[in-house]
């Protein structure tokens, strides 16, 4: 294992120290591993709290700031944070207008956030709502299973719901917008290599030189199938087809197209992939209203990418375009 770290068990707490040092607008509660806005709580503003296992940076801590999250809870690498962290974050950002929890759909995250909401409500009476993202079409959904995983849509949702909260919209509204985003977004990813969890010290899975894992999860969970390595134009189709079909998207629909790097893939490759994605969308007359290309929800050092499409209307686009100022996403301010 070759990593720029000290002791594997210290990675999360040391990265939080680095994040705090690099971004003077943010505060870090190191005991609880919470990253929060220096101006929190903002009176009368709905608080947005997310969190999850670490290793997906900039998600979530890098999305704390004006126009996006108020606080993020960092778990150990790939391990959900615990309710105490989430409850503390909830109190920290409670400005009297309620708090929205943004939770990626993994059993651990969902249950821990549930307990946190119960705890926070019991302790301080703050009104807590939760939105669970489950956009990964690689996993077949059913009420009998854990359901689809939350992946790329989480980034877009945190931005859009964050803008709504920043505008001063009430909890009901912010929650409705968040649910709309999740309902209209789908994703699928591919891994060319495994990630390596620092404490494990070796790759999570073995992938032969000529194979790739289609539909991989952001913790290195297996996908739909293992298929031979393919050119970017074929990969784009393998990722997009199920996304377009699942939503479904039709000619004329406007989307935000998001090509995401999984941590070990350089930007030049993401642009090659984006070119293929744009060509497929153009051929189907799906219109790209906005785009995002870069590593925003990663899986440590995994080489690979995911594609997310979010069907948008004018309201969502307006919120997407609104100013945001976080370490990971910034414009208009």
């Amino acid at each position, binding site marked *: 294992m070759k990593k720029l770290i000290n002791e594997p068990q210290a990675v999360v707490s040391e990265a939080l120290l680095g994040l705090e040092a690099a971004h003077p607008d943010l505060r870090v509660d190191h005991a609880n591993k919470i990253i929060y806005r220096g101006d929190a709580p903002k009176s009368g503003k709905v608080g947005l709290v997310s969190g999850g296992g670490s290793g997906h940076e900039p998600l979530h801590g890098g999305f704390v700031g004006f126009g996006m999250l108020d606080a993020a809870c960092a*778990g*150990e690498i*790939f*391990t*959900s*944070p*615990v*309710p*105490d962290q989430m409850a503390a974050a909830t109190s920290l950002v409670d400005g009297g207008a309620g708090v929205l929890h943004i939770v990626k759909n*993994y*059993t*651990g995250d969902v*249950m*821990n956030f*549930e*307990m946190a909401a119960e705890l926070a409500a019991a302790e301080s009476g703050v009104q807590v709502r939760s939105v669970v993202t489950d956009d990964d079409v690689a*996993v*077949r959904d059913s009420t*009998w*299973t*854990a359901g689809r*995983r939350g992946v790329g849509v989480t980034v877009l949702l945190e931005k859009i719901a964050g803008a709504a909260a920043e505008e001063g919209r009430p909890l009901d509204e912010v929650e409705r917008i968040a649910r709309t985003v999740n309902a209209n977004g789908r994703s699928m990813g591919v891994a060319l290599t495994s990630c390596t*969890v620092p*404490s*494990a010290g070796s790759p*999570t899975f073995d992938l032969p030189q000529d194979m790739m894992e289609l539909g991989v*999860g952001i*913790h*290195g*969970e*297996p996908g739909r199938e293992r298929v031979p390595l393919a050119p970017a134009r074929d990969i784009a189709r393998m990722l997009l087809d199920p996304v377009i079909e699942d939503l479904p998207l039709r000619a004329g629909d406007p989307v935000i197209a998001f090509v995401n790097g999984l941590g070990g893939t350089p930007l030049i490759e993401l642009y090659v992939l984006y070119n293929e994605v744009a060509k497929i969308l153009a051929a189907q007359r799906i219109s790209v209203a906005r785009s995002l290309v870069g590593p925003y929800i990663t899986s440590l050092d995994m080489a690979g990418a995911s594609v997310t499409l979010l069907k948008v209307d004018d309201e969502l686009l307006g919120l997407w375009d609104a100013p945001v100022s976080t370490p990971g996403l910034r414009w208009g301010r």
Partner: protein
Amino acid sequence: MGDEISARALADWLREFARRIHEHRDELTRLDSAIGDADHGTNMDRGLTAVVAAIDALGPATAGQLLKKTGMTLVSTVGGASGPLYGTFFLRLATALGDVDVVTTAQLAAAFRAGLEGVVARGKAQAGDKTMVDALSPAVDALEAAAAGGATTHDALQAARAAGERGRDATTPMQARKGRASYLGERSVGHQDPGATSVELLLSAAVDTLG
């Protein structure tokens, strides 16, 4: 006989559970790496190390105090799926037993039933979903039946452990429908569930310390 379980014995149970988890940590993680994310052993070991420290710090306590501290510590330190599930289990045990210093087998069985119900309420898993419920549920049935039939604590816990062990083994051919293993679909078949495996350690620790 041992038909009355002291709070001190319950503390011994928790310590023995911690010891077994530590001993089987790598095995649990290995099971979890086959169908999950390779952390069940680490998660449980982190949590139970914290539990032992917490009950050491607590000093003499009632059954309710002890088990509440255990549940809260697990919730606060484990994370993942097993943290809320095991945490809820012990919190429900605490509520069911209350501030008593001794517990009968029947009371223990009723508390286990409440714990199981808490796990199901939290995780929404059903029998056959290939989770810890598949070990815990038959164990609670056996414990209740034995207690109702007037068995000794030892015999009742032996019956529970045996049922839990069978339940654990039965997870191997199942296809997972809950938790991370469910993403594997059919590929989850043929692997023993890690959570069901740690439940068996909980039960065998009980046999050694409570019976």
